């Protein structure tokens, strides 16, 4: 039988977990909704409908990260690799779309050469998911391989059943978390039925739908349709909002800085939407805006599926909500022409 926890007891639960983990929870304290270190008492996020603005990927791939330090002395350069702090993180309140997005990004960072920075943080983290009871009009997760209450990519999933959350145990890590928790009650059969109903209600509240059948091929055939892409890109302003705040985007830049013989190499978020992203000394293959917009759409809906069999989008809706010009990926995908013959 599953366990359940009263919403009023969540603070206590988080306090207990704080003894072993660095607990992160959604909060607006910094000025914007993001996962931050839990302050010890705030659980107002339990009432939120919307996702955080900054996705939880920031816990594994931070906006800015020091890769290593270096120093110059009489004998030359010394490189100081980062110390493995092995800190265990517990991310509480992760939405299914963001959890699925993490699994999608994992594929890149695990593939071929392993990325030590991302993977170390990821392996030391436990995810406690929170299902969505009121999906927004920008959400389209049900068309992108997940649901508002999908537990596939988290260790525990909380399903809202009124005054309580039903807790779904998903992984061994999750089970271990529960074993040490107090204040949990046994869920009744009626609780479980309530949970199933809650899941169905949430699922049906997602009104935005996107049909992605054949999108990989439609994009392949429309790649050189300059007219279509120019029209599609017309109102884009080439900022980085949709990509930097997308949970499945992961592009980064690497930069060095040194002052008086001491410095570090950093990596920071970057975007294929920026004009200089692909700039070389003699040419820039994507100096034109329509090429960059095309790259973003094709990377997510064509190239990533070619490499990993999954569309790099989970329908979280941030890009649609936060775009300064309301450029909408679902409208664009729907409008990609079918079988364009030799259009150039």
């Amino acid at each position, binding site marked *: 039988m599953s366990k359940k926890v009263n919403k009023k007891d969540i603070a206590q639960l988080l306090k207990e977990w704080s003894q072993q983990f660095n607990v992160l929870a959604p909060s607006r304290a910094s000025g914007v909704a993001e996962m931050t270190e839990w302050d010890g008492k705030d659980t107002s996020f339990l009432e939120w409908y919307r996702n955080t603005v900054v996705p939880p990927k920031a816990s594994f791939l931070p906006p800015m990260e020091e890769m290593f330090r270096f120093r110059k002395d009489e004998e030359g350069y010394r490189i100081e*690799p980062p110390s493995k702090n092995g800190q265990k993180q517990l991310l509480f309140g992760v939405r299914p779309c963001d959890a699925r997005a993490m699994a999608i990004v994992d594929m890149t960072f695990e593939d*071929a*050469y392993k990325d030590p920075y991302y993977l170390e943080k990821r392996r030391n983290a436990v995810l406690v998911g929170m299902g969505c009871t009121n999906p927004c009009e920008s959400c389209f997760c049900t068309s992108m391989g997940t649901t508002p209450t999908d537990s596939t990519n988290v260790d525990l999933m909380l399903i809202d059943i009124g005054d309580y959350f039903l807790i779904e145990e998903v992984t061994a890590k999750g089970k271990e978390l529960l074993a040490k928790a107090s204040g949990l009650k046994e869920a009744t059969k009626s609780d479980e039925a309530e949970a199933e109903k809650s899941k169905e209600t949430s699922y049906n509240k997602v009104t935005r739908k996107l049909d992605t059948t054949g999108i990989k091929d439609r994009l392949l055939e429309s790649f050189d349709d300059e007219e279509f892409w120019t029209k599609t890109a017309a109102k884009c302003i080439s900022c980085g909002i949709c990509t930097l705040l997308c949970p499945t985007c992961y592009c980064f830049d690497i930069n060095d800085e040194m002052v008086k013989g001491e410095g570090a190499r950093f990596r920071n978020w970057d975007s294929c939407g920026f004009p200089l992203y*692909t700039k070389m000394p003699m040419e820039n293959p994507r100096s034109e805006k329509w090429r960059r917009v095309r790259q973003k759409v094709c990377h997510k809906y064509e190239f990533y599926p070619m490499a990993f069999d999954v569309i790099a989008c989970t329908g979280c809706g941030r890009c649609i909500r936060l775009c300064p010009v309301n450029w909408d990926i679902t409208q664009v995908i729907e409008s990609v022409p079918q079988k364009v013959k030799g259009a150039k």
Partner: protein
Amino acid sequence: MTVSDITKRPKFFAKDNVYLPHIVVIEKIIEETPGVRTFHFNFKDKKLAREFKFESGQFAQCSVFGVGEAPFCISSSPTRPDHLEFAAQRVGRVTNALHRLGVGAELGFRGPYGNSFPLDSLKGKNLVFVGGGIGLAPLRSLIWNIIDNRDKYNKVDIIYGARTPADLCFRYDLEAWDKDKTINMVTTIDREAEGWTGRVGLVPNVLGEVAPKAKDAVAIVCGPPIMIRFTFPVLEKLGFTPAQMLTTLEKRMKCGIGKCGRCNIGNVYVCRDGPVFSYEQIKNFVSSEY
């Protein structure tokens, strides 16, 4: 094309972290042209210097600490491993900083990355090298590799050109290859220049004049993108199939290992699935951005 299998590629990670560079020391600097320098260097760690392996065509991310990192193809041949070489043209922040360094300066080195020229498929073939400007750098690694195993390969034609005589790189190589009786060395410059008594003509045009036979041949082309784009049609006219044409592609790179995203052409990452590609592969790219 799915993700390249990198399991068979040599890997030399510092402390298990693919992003940590090794320290290398500059041993010699050759000024090829006013804007191009060749750097001879070696690992500070002597053990690594002995163990390091790479293949012709591969590149490395070399850095000037505090300034930045950039991809450079390793221009020395794996058959001559007493030191490593790369050539850099002064075009931006990192290369400018590089050109201000002297012998003894230390650099960061991460590599080798990328795929390499498919030596097995070149054995027994007639090889036609077509190079322009600094594009000779990756080719020279392969050319010396072939010379050091000469009997495994057939005819060798090298057609190399630059804008002006002052822009010709690796002149010491051009002289050595000219003297080599098993090599047909053709050097050209774009336009007439005072004091130049050699061939004149754009590289693709000179290639058309030399007209190497396509039968049992493989062409390896490297140079500025515009030269490559004009060379392929000439080769096609000579009867070369796209599978018989190889080249190395260039893109802006940062991680060098297929993670940061920027060097892609469709689903292919030039740093991981390249930089060596055949024209046949290029024609099959899902993207026309090359």
